[in-house]
């Protein structure tokens, strides 16, 4: 059924259609509306049976999720930013133990300086934790991905993060097509655990493993992610058959066939980029776009196949490895091993900085002329950066950076966006 609703509400209703047994909830912006929505659905009885647990922290949320998943319950939670960081030890345990928890990460920057707005620093910090990471381009895809995530997680017996841009998607009202219960039931069978804590058939889960087998256990986690590489597109294809929509999969190319320049990105910026690429195509530029929809496992072969024929590749990412540059770019370079082409990294949208069509047109134009720096920060305000560097060179006690920059900028509230 078509509805005009908030992204968070769409995800809450979609998760409810997946019949979770346990939901662990701890609020943090911009994820809060999702678990609030689920709380309402449990309280009203629309989602039943389901145990909705208000926990005392994110660490508790993931710990409870581990317990409930190990006892055979279909388990869901959601978090963002510092919340994800706070639960990290348990996040690694969930994947190490092979527990198919599904978690939404409403992508948000990490402090300091404290910032509630969107970028990909939070989930990227967990790219090596052993969870599958799927990225949503739109609210429709976010709700569709949650349904696929439970199926994938439970088949593989490993946890899945569905990453959706905080505020840009979570707080956006737009049209979504909400599936009905029968469709979801046809796609997602009841959870059949591979391992379960059952008093009638006792086992232990979570042995200490020494040098004799630790490498092998870790390798098996990798082997499972490689199996997921094969299953993700199959599950997306089955999804499309039942629901009639293309969602998920490993990558989604747009006009890459004869493209000399290809932009690579993930998440909600794909929509704006698609407009920009179409505009540039109309102007005669041979440009295309590749959306990475599964970031872990990373689809090396698909990325190589899509980009290998291009003259230049621009990775536009909302993440940043301080002291190196791009995060996604590093993986894209690996996919292109041995292929000669111009590679550019554009770090954009950190801490909610708007990514506009005008700025994208400018930076992609510079890339096409091969005038772009290898590492570019989109719309960086060099004025306040240089002013601060000068201040530091001049005075030892130059004061806190964040406060200094805000003072240089003046009244932020006077800006329109």
């Amino acid at each position, binding site marked *: 059924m078509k509805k*005009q609703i908030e992204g968070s509400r769409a995800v809450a209703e979609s998760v409810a259609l997946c019949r979770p047994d346990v939901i662990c909830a701890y609020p943090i912006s911009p994820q809060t509306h999702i678990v609030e929505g689920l709380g309402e659905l449990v309280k009203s009885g629309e989602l039943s049976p389901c145990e909705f647990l208000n926990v005392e922290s994110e660490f508790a949320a993931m710990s409870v999720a581990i317990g409930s998943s190990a006892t055979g319950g279909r388990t869901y939670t959601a978090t963002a930013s510092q919340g994800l960081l706070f639960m990290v030890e348990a996040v690694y345990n969930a994947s190490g133990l092979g527990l198919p928890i599904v978690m939404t990460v409403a992508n948000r920057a990490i402090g300091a300086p404290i910032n509630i707005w969107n970028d990909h620093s939070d989930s990227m910090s967990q790219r090596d934790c052993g969870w599958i990471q799927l990225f949503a381009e739109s609210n429709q895809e976010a709700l569709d991905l949650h349904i696929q995530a439970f199926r994938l997680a439970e088949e593989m017996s490993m946890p899945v993060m569905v990453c959706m841009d905080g505020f840009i998607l979570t707080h956006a*009202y737009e049209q979504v097509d909400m599936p009905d219960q029968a469709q979801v039931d046809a796609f997602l069978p009841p959870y059949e655990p591979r391992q379960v804590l059952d008093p009638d058939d006792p086992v232990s889960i979570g042995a200490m493993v020494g040098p004799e087998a630790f490498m092998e256990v870790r390798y098996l986690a990798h082997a499972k992610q490689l199996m997921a590489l094969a299953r993700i597109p199959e599950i997306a294809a089955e999804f499309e058959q039942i629901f009639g929509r293309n969602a998920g999969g490993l990558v989604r190319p747009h006009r890459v066939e004869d493209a000399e320049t290809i932009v690579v990105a993930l998440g909600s910026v794909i929509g704006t980029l698609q407009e920009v690429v179409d505009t540039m195509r109309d102007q005669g530029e041979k440009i295309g776009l590749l959306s990475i929809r599964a970031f872990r496992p990373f689809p090396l072969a698909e990325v190589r196949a899509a980009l290998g024929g291009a003259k230049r590749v621009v990775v536009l990412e909302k993440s940043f490895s301080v002291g190196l540059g791009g995060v996604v770019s590093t993986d894209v370079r690996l996919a292109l091993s041995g292929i000669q082409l111009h590679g550019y990294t554009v770090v954009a949208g950190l801490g909610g900085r708007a990514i506009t069509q005008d700025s994208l047109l400018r930076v992609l134009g510079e890339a096409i002329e091969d005038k772009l720096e290898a590492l570019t920060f989109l719309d960086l305000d060099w004025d306040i950066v240089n002013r601060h560097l000068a201040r530091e060179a001049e005075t030892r006690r130059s004061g806190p950076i964040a406060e200094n920059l805000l003072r240089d900028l003046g009244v932020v*509230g*006077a800006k*329109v966006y």
Partner: protein
Amino acid sequence: MLQVRIHGRGGQGVVTAAEMLSIAAFEEGRHAQAFPSFGSERTGAPVVAFCRIDDQPIQIREPILAPDVLIIQDATLLHQVDVFQGLKLDGYVLINSRHPFDELGLEDIAERFCRERFITLSATEIALRHLGRPLPNAVLLGGFAALTGLVGLDGVAHAIEHKFGGEIARRNIAAATEAYEAVADATRSGASVAGASQEATE
């Protein structure tokens, strides 16, 4: 594509207004996207929300830089925030105030744009009368429908009902309807102020 930017202060229902506008457009069979630009999340702090309406699915996600319509829910922002930034030359402007532009110091700005598309509406006054609280958001949507004709009053009423329901919806719909009629009257007669009580305009 039609792009609407709504300025107001935390607590005035700015984000809700954009959401309701998107629902009204959806009810009329169109595609719509509403989203906030949250700032400090404090009561009284400047807040901006956006709404795009189109006949095709909307894929861009940038803030609205060149609006076709501006709704200003709080006139005290006029000299604090550059609310007119990027406004299209033939854009519509709806300001919550009982005062005409010249009294708001906007005569020059109104002349630069399409003057007959600028109007002030005493939305807070109408809200106080119907709701007993100074919440101008639904009232201004009624005015928006009359000023622009870009959504119907029925669509606005439906969105209010969807968002609030019950008595609160009924009162807001009555207030929005009054605003719709006041703005329709004012545009017919060429007045630049709508809905101000006799006492206020004297």
